[in-house]
């Protein structure tokens, strides 16, 4: 007798079906086996997290200036504090650090400007970032012009050097990689074979070998009247090496574009460069964002290898600090700091690439 009953009003789902308790029940305590594993997992988490938090925060020493200010019961962040300037700027003269700060500020402003969609004049800012800014940064950092004292490159170091190596590597490797990828797909035999040989050679040797050759063997081959600065050697080696990897990533993207696209463009009477620049590459690069960013991230971390040729990148300067007789025995703190800095930069790159993918997603997402 349905019509006799009052119609039950809409009610929220019971707390046993939605909400945190239900979520816990379906995902973590769904049956005896799952409950057991959840408890074991929680216990392991407890074993890991509690000592870590105690070491890094509760028992840690934060203020002071010497080793004696550290109790050694927890982390000694005093060490990082005392060395912070060195970790960021390397051996850059303290009185000239304002120059490095201007470059840092300009660098991050430009990146933010290019990354935030609302801001105008993107094209001009991009042109400035690629053409004007490197010259300004070089003049400021290296000096020797406009009464700025010269700062030799072997005093550059720390995070500054890591960012420099990574940025120059990325900015240099992308265009070279595109050209190599197009060259490898070219019909012209000489261009094609040059690109194939170039890519396969640089991909076939480990980066550490490239840096080593640049640093140890090159000076022996060059006439002794000239010696190329070791930072320049490292930059060239790093860029060429990464461009070979980049070329293969981009070639993968080019392969994924149906041949019809290029043929249609050709039918419209477009030249080769127009076909590539307007039709094929925009589609290919968009799809290649995860691959390209992946290469960038690995490049960022590969920069630590310059340590073996005597350049103090972020990790190198941390390791150098660990051997100061006044700070012996704080290697854990040093490495945790370096790892955290690397994580911040790599994670930001990764998040930005995900954002870009969503923004440029126009029908290819699967």
């Amino acid at each position, binding site marked *: 007798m349905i019509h006799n009953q009052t119609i039950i009003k809409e009610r929220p789902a019971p707390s046993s079906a939605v909400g945190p308790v239900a979520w816990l029940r379906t995902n973590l305590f769904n049956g005896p086996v799952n409950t057991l594993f959840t408890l074991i997992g929680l216990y392991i988490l407890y074993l890991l997290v509690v000592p870590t938090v105690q070491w890094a925060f509760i028992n840690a020493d934060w203020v002071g200036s010497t080793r004696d200010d550290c109790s050694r019961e927890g982390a000694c962040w005093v060490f990082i504090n005392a060395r912070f300037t060195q970790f960021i700027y390397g051996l850059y003269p303290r009185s000239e650090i304002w120059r490095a700060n201007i470059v840092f500020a300009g660098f991050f402003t430009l990146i933010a400007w290019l990354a935030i969609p609302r801001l105008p004049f993107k094209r001009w800012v991009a042109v400035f970032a690629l053409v004007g800014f490197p010259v300004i940064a070089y003049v400021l950092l290296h000096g020797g012009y406009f009464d700025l004292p010269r700062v030799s490159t*072997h005093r550059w170091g720390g995070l500054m050097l890591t960012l420099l190596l990574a940025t120059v590597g990325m900015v240099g490797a992308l265009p070279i990689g595109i050209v190599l990828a197009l060259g490898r797909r070219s019909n012209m035999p000489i261009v094609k074979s040059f690109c194939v040989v170039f890519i396969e050679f640089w991909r076939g040797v480990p980066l550490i070998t490239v840096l080593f050759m640049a640093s*140890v063997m090159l000076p*022996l081959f*060059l006439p*002794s009247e000239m*010696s190329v600065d070791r930072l320049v050697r490292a930059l060239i080696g790093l860029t060429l090496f990464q461009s070979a990897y980049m070329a293969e990533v981009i070639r993968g993207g080019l392969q994924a574009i149906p041949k019809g696209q290029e043929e249609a463009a050709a039918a419209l009477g477009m030249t080769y460069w127009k076909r590539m620049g307007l039709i094929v590459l925009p589609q290919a690069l968009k799809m290649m964002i995860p691959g390209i960013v992946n290469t960038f991230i690995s490049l960022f971390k590969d920069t630590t290898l310059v340590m073996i040729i005597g350049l103090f990148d972020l990790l190198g300067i941390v390791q150098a600090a660990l051997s*100061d007789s006044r700070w*012996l025995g704080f290697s854990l703190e040093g490495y945790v700091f370096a790892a955290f800095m690397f994580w911040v930069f790599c994670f930001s790159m990764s998040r930005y690439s995900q954002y870009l993918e969503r923004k440029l997603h126009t029908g290819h997402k699967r």
Partner: protein
Amino acid sequence: MKTVRWLGVGIGILVPTVAMASTLETVKERDSVRCGVNAAQPGFSSLDDDDQYRGLDTDVCRAIAAAALGDATKVDFVPLDSVERFTALQSGEVDVLSRTTTWTSSRDTTMGMNFTGVSYYDGQAFMVASDLGVQSAKELDGAAVCTQSGTTSELNLSDYFRINGMTYDPVVFDAPEQSIAGFEAGRCDVLSSDASQLYAQRMQLADPSMALVLPEIISKEPLGPAVRQGDDQWFNLVKWSLFAMLNAEELGITQANVDEQLSSENPDVMRLLGQDGHFGEAMGVNVDWAYQIVKQVGNYADIYDRNVGADSDFNIARGLNALWSDGGIQYAPPIR
């Protein structure tokens, strides 16, 4: 060459160096000594909080700069990897290599370099836990010994135990940080490495007093500065910079009293400090070269105590590095 210059202007970081000029002329023209050092060797060369290199090796560099240019601060330190160091010296990237480099016959004869002397007599030694109650390496029969793989220490170790008719249980690690961690965790009773390194590793223990370095030294590792072959003038200058520090110690001239010693009547002191004779000029430097070394850097005892000896955290006894007159083997020819 034109292209090279043009490139140099274009890139701006290319540094043209003159190969045929003598090293001393190049150094004077550049107004700095390029010194190849270790980036991270506690007590010998390491960076302090104020971006300065501190250590025995780096003070040797400063002494050379004081002699050559009259200013101990005019040194460009170039951190070098252990493999890269010889190329850097050969190719002219550095003027002198002062990087805990052991003087061996093959390096002296086949690598295009000349060792100028011994700034530190090092050698392989043993470190044990203090509560073990061991006083001599001869009592180590049957011990578990931590060492690093692929080094000569491993070989020296097995030779030493075989010669003395003892057995041991090797525990091999890859890097110094790992071997000290193994030692601290009790994986072995003894840690064996070069003495200079053992003292640095000891400082990394939570409680350094829990370990002690035994007196026995089982290998010869003379460390010293090296220069390129074929430039005897520069070779002489580097060699005598070291000798000047040793002579100063022997004559009792310290960084603190060097100005008083200028009025000394002792002919040896007068010759060393340039009050009598023209020994600096024969080397191509100022007559007060040795005075500048002692005044700005110190005598050998000053730099030893400051970096690895009594005034440092390591507190390494002078041992072999004491002057010959004090029972060691540091001996410098006289200046006359």
